[in-house]
């Protein structure tokens, strides 16, 4: 029981580490690294699902009978590319946020937002 599911439990712990980083850490780049951890652990879950003990890589060779399942590999190729696309967009947003707000800490940005809100209210009353 333990050996059979050990892989999945480690993958679950990795997923939760990634999720924790995304939620708890204020730094925007740290959140992106957390996101990569979270997505990579989902890929590891898919690939460990596809492995057959005693099977080799899904490239047809005449002397091999047992292959690992090729379908999750094709799915994960798509998911990796989707992951890098999201990361590239998130990083360009971080650059623009740094240029606009001057900082990449969540509290600092939130404080500046509330600041603008407060000024707008005073101007409205005046």
């Amino acid at each position, binding site marked *: 029981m333990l050996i059979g599911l050990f892989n999945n439990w480690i993958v679950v712990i990795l997923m939760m580490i990634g999720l924790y980083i995304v939620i708890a850490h204020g730094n925007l780049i*740290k959140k992106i690294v957390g996101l990569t951890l979270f997505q990579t652990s989902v890929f*590891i879950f898919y690939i460990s699902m596809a492995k057959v003990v005693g099977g080799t890589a899904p490239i047809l060779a005449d002397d091999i009978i047992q292959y690992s399942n090729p379908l*999750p590999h094709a799915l994960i*190729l798509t998911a990796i590319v989707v992951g890098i696309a999201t990361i*590239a*967009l998130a990083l360009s947003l971080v650059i623009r946020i*740094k240029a606009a707000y001057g900082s990449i800490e969540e509290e600092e940005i939130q404080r500046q937002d509330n600041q603008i809100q407060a000024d707008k209210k005073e101007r409205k009353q005046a």
Partner: protein
Amino acid sequence: MIDIVLLTLLLVVAIAIIRMKDLFAVIMLSGIYGLLSASFFVAMDAVDVAFTEAAVGAGISTLLMLVVITMTGRSENTTRHKPFPALLLVVITGGLLIYGTLDMPYFGSADAPVHSHVAPRYINDSMQEIGIPNIVTSILASYRAFDTFGELVVIFTAGVGVLALLSIVRRPIKGDKIAAVNDSMHEQHLVIRIVTKILLPFILLFALYVQFHGDFGPGGGFQAGVIFAAAIILYAMLFGLSTARIVINQAFIQLIAATGVLLYGCVGLVSLLNGGNFFDYNFLSNDAIAGQHLGILLIEWAVGCTVASVMIIIFFNFADYRERQLSNENQHNQESP
């Protein structure tokens, strides 16, 4: 056995990433994390995935994060806001997932439903129907060609998104200024420039080998595109962005990205006009297997073009933004003291 060791290493690196304050160390560790997960995929016989994860996960994403770090500063402030509700939420989702794993088929068992329903047809019949040894490429390019088309559009969207966010109207830089930059770069990185001059042709050739070798071994459009882009990025880093812009002009790269997606779509349209369904390569030429080969070759070529040009677009815009920021800072420093 190997995978258990690799997984524990991954766990150690992940925990270290949580505790690290210095963002630079976090990126270095995420590079190691990418390499480790890529070697885990090799241990799990996922050859193509290891290829892509190494090239993308360990290479390009570390590179892009590095360029961003030099603009946004290295230190992360120490106050960890709301750790406990986050921990609570994470523990609940983790608990639900662990609860979910209890009924899963054991790791590597051959009788799991995954190996008995859809997969056997791919393994047994793909040689007769499509005729290429690498089953993953045959699934990617023929059985589920529309998935790869969607994925290509995702990469194209990311490229256009980065263009929309970071692209600026370029002022033509005077010739002599480029020469000045070139000289200072030359003096700083003498050894590296010579080595890269030797290495660049090899990397580009290797990218083309990976591109056309996708049918027989690990490789294919994505991996080739990323390696090609990595070579161009290496050139741009060491020979200066302005010289690289002259070698590879940006409008042409955007054109290639667009034509890559169009080529992929046209392969589908041609098979549609010949009477088959959208991505049915059997109608591309009179013999079915030749049609499959032709279709997969064209699709891999389209994917390679688009991925390479989008990665180049993303890197050039990131580095360009950094260059402009540094020049603004320098002007600012010259005026203020």
